[in-house]
């Protein structure tokens, strides 16, 4: 008899607790994501600083390794277009360009093709992370066009270059609006 009275009350209490806990856990999740993001951003900054030092010392292989570390960092969802992600996109660009540079000096055709493939992959991954209209996106498309051209894929190269021009146009329009506004 007593359990019949207590059971609905207990269920009610559980529901209430769940309702109260939901916003708290969402907030906690948000705070966790923020912490995760800040950690990732700090890592990216450190690697970028080391990249610059290695580049100054002409240690290109080490510099590229630092950039690769930035590329591999995982940023939490919901931080698209944030400073950390932009830094990562920049790393995609710089690393891809250094690989393309190495490919242009490579005499072995197979190795050269593999390097270009690697660079194309980096640029394409970068495009998935980059904002739709941004100077980095423009640069990624230009890089991609150049890499495709080196690989002899003329149609793909032109498509990439033309996408870059479209973004460039939008950036210029935005700049004009900013000046007039």
């Amino acid at each position: 008899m007593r359990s019949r009275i207590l059971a609905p009350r207990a269920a009610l209490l559980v529901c209430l607790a769940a309702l109260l806990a939901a916003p708290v856990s969402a907030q906690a999740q948000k705070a966790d994501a923020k912490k995760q993001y800040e950690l990732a951003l700090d890592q990216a900054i450190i690697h970028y600083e080391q990249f610059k030092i290695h580049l100054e010392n002409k240690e290109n292989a080490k510099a590229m390794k630092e950039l690769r570390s930035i590329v591999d960092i995982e940023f939490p969802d919901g931080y698209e277009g944030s400073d950390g992600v932009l830094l990562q996109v920049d790393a995609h660009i710089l690393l891809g360009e250094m690989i393309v540079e190495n490919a242009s000096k490579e005499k072995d055709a197979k190795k050269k093709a593999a390097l270009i493939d690697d660079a194309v992959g980096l640029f394409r991954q970068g495009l998935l992370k980059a904002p739709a209209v941004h100077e980095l996106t423009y640069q990624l498309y230009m890089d991609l066009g150049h890499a495709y051209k080196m690989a002899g894929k003329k149609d793909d190269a032109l498509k990439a270059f033309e996408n870059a021009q479209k973004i460039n146009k939008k950036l210029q329009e935005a700049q004009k609006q900013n000046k007039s506004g």
Partner: protein
Amino acid sequence: MTMDENQEQKLAALLSDIVDGRAGMDSAAGEPELLDAAVAANVLRQGFGDEPALAASFDARLRERLVAQTAARAKIVPMHRRPWLRGALAAALIMLIVGPFWLFSRHAGVDPFGDDESMQLQRLEYYDNKYESRLNQLRERIDRSAEPDIMVRTSLSRSDERFENIRQKRQNERRMQRVREYTTGGNEL
């Protein structure tokens, strides 16, 4: 009244006489058009009786002759007699439509019918040269063979600038966070 009009009236009167039977067909000799007209008028007036095939054949011949006469008067040759003229006109029409497109396609950047090989290459080279200028700066930085032009704010220097901004911003954030932690005793969520 002119000579031609006089002659025409005379012929019309003669035709009328022939048709009414006041004059014989021989009076139309030396006037082939009048003779044709007189024959046609006579036949039409009298009819072919019960000879429909003959009537149809006569009608067709008469129609053909009338068409030829009208065309000769207007100095027009019917289109169906000159099939090559039809072809030439169609070709001219096509040229008229296609011509402007072809003309515009000679100018770089405008390609209503898509790209031909040379234009595609030209455009590729144009974009790639634009790209190369930036890559050269990267080369300079890597090789240190020449000092980069500091006045040129390339995207590479913008990368550095962006990084510096991000680094400073993060540094400030961390400083502020430490201040908050100090003031709240680290009980901040």
